[in-house]
């Protein structure tokens, strides 16, 4: 029994470590400029937890086997513990855990504490049950106001724009695909029309909820690599439970060169006239 449980724990440990080690399943490619620091923090955490995982599980397995009741007269060790040992591992755990966390500070700060550059491309993301819309401000650089009473999917005016009366809305471009230029900072302003949604692009290491009643800005830059994978096309998925169609709420993100992007935007604008 003791040997069996020791072996089972050991086998579980080895298989788990192997799957991480061999990247059988692994993080998707990173096509953002900030993703490297996230992945680095992930690796640091993986190595640290991996060491603790292996030591703790194998220690458990070894102790169970080694100290099993063999039916001999050896008594168990009478010990209430060891204060020096307690203090040592408490301090060690504290330094490792909190230290690790502080290492991630800069990565988080660069994503969330600083605003986007003034010349970043600004795009609005709108979520509704169960699709995304993206709005570009057009040549005037202004997003026109949205009117709740005009919002209607049936009439094709999901965002409730009043193009006839609001000059800023006139040139706004609403699309079903999010196209962005490579190597240029993008600021997304996230909105939700109805319930909570989320904007998640694995390869960009971008993840943020769309909260009803709030306009939440996030910013990132697609790196040169972004053009190289899958034709620059990535899936945007909703990760916040939003209702029965949650599982199919997705859109595509297309990374392009600046020229292609300008062409695409122009084409979109013409289609909407």
């Amino acid at each position, binding site marked *: 029994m003791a040997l069996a449980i020791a072996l089972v724990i050991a086998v579980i440990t080895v298989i788990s470590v192997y799957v991480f080690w061999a990247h059988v399943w692994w993080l998707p490619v990173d096509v953002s400029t900030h993703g490297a620091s996230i992945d680095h923090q992930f690796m640091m955490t993986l190595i640290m937890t991996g060491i603790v995982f292996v030591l703790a599980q194998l220690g458990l397995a070894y102790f169970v086997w080694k100290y099993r009741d063999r039916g001999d007269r050896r008594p168990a060790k*009478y*010990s209430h513990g*060891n204060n020096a040992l307690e203090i040592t591992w408490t301090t060690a755990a504290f330094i490792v855990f909190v230290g*690790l966390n502080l290492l991630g500070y800069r990565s988080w700060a660069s994503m969330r504490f600083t605003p986007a550059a003034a010349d970043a491309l600004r795009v609005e993301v709108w979520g509704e049950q169960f699709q995304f819309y993206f709005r570009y401000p057009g040549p005037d650089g202004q997003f026109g106001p949205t009117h*709740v009473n005009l919002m209607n999917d049936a009439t094709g005016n999901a965002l409730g724009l009043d193009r006839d009366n609001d000059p800023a809305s006139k040139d706004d471009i609403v699309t079903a695909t999010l196209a962005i230029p490579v190597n240029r900072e993008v600021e997304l302003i996230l909105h939700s*029309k109805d*319930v909570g949604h989320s904007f998640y692009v694995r390869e960009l290491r971008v993840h943020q909820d769309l909260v009803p*009643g709030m306009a939440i800005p996030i910013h990132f830059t697609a790196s040169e690599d972004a053009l190289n994978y899958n034709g620059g096309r990535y899936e945007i998925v909703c990760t916040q439970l939003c209702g029965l169609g949650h599982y199919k709420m997705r859109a595509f993100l297309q990374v392009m060169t600046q020229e292609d992007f300008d062409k695409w935007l122009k084409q979109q604008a013409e289609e909407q006239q």
Partner: protein
Amino acid sequence: MEAHAVATHAHAAPTGFIRKYIFSLDHKVIGKQYYFLALFSVVVGILLSVLMRWHLVWPDARIPLLDKLSPTGAPGGIMTPEYYLSLLTMHGTLMVFFVLTTAPQSGFGNFLLPIQIGAEDMAFPRLNMLSFWVTFAGLVVLLSSFFVGDGPPLSGWTAYTPLSAVGSVAGPGEGTGQTLWVISIALFCVGSLLGALNFITTTLDLRTRGLTLMRLPLTCWAWFITAVLALLSFAVLFAAGVLLLLDRVGGTSFFVPAGLVVSDQRIAHSGGSPLLWQHLFWFFGHPEVYIAILPGMGITSHVLSTFSRKPIFGYRAMVYAMMAIGFLGFMVWGHHMFVSGMSPYVGFAFSVFTMAIGVPSAIKTFNWLGTLWGGKLRLNTAMLFAIGFVSLFVSGGLSGLFLAQPPVDTNLHATYFVVGHFHLVMGVAAIFGMFAGTFFWFPKMFGRMMNETLGKIHFWITFVGVYCIFMPMHFLGLEGNIRRYSRFTDVNFLVPLIPLHKFMTIAAFVTAGAQFIFLFNLFWSMFKGEKATENPWEATSLEWTVPSPPPFDNFAGRHPVVYRGPYEFSVPGAPKDYVMQDAPEPVAAH
């Protein structure tokens, strides 16, 4: 200057069937009532999870009998996406509230706490009965949502607003079903609060002579600290529940902002914020995680020490670690909200405390290993489950360190990594704690022994099975496999992951099936098991000084006096390898 605890029992032994078994004031009967309530809930909960796993990998398959259960949710036996979400919501709610909060705390705690502290009953027997029946009413209300209009709600056990607040326009089950959900949770809050204040008062006031706080079994410490957490956190959930109910039925807008258009319909609410609900919910929700796991930690410590034939390693460190977990548990709820639109500065502060809470968790693990070290391990079923608890707690706990860091959480949030993490650490580990407790205290509760062979078969399948189900979830999370999707066919990057999901589903079928072995063992042993002696495990705490099962007032009018701590095993010079807590003769070491 103050009198000792009054010796006379507050209520006489009941005679009629109803007073004895239904509306009983006896903590032992109430403990069993909670246990069976949780057992019923866990059977339903597991059944729901099996149906969900089935649907996930064969979304178009016909599931036998499902159309009988819900003709609208599964027309022709094929589950609809919305019914999947309803089952998900009910699975989460049942498991978190009616299993993980109920069995380890109210079930085992009620049965054992008074006996372990040498008392005749809880401090407030009537309140105790009331807590159970309020909780029972909560369960009935929750389950009744299966049978109303469009079924149970689909907004998950976290009931994020506005999905849960704006009514049936947001989806099936969001009408009556969601209202019943809120009422059920509010009732559960009341039951838990009453139970918590009873536990705290009992532990502080009713300890028998000589039982100082530092001589309490770690189980009692765990129940005590859990009760403190429940008292302080359920109060907030109750307030949040009242507000959500008002948002739903009274037209208020605490959690719903202005200008929403759901399915092309304008929502009249204005002025609230979904973030407020998330804050209030997780303010309760995170301490709740520790409410679920702390009793399991207590049971594991108790069982490990007993069957290692060794004093627990670092008793005081164990107590302080549990206190630290409880204290820090109130300062970390924001780690559920790193991508929720919460202030990122606040988010980072939350992450520091979250990592800090790993420290007491690590202390506990090290001390469990320290307890095994140099022991003389008796590997019976209860011990196996306690060892399994440690293994699962380590595996699930470590993955929490990823999710605690905002940058790393960016990619793992709302993926199966999270699902794997919390199922291992607070789901399965806590249930292993319950299994360990069941095998350990079954003789005391029912006067008979459980079958060890069946117990071990059950352990092996379950232990390997849960690793096969929940470890792969971490790998899926790396790939960005989103949770709460009812099928994976509509997102390109999820399709290649379906084979691994199939493996997990098969593992889930096998593991769920193995639970019948446990159920059979439990009920068979109750009537046919070998008769238990007073102290079959040669354990030291007070419950093993009374007959199995204990008489109505536990100590038959006797008042035990405690002379030492609860884990005096293998004391050098002692005649046996254990010294009872109430044994007066002096022994060599402290």
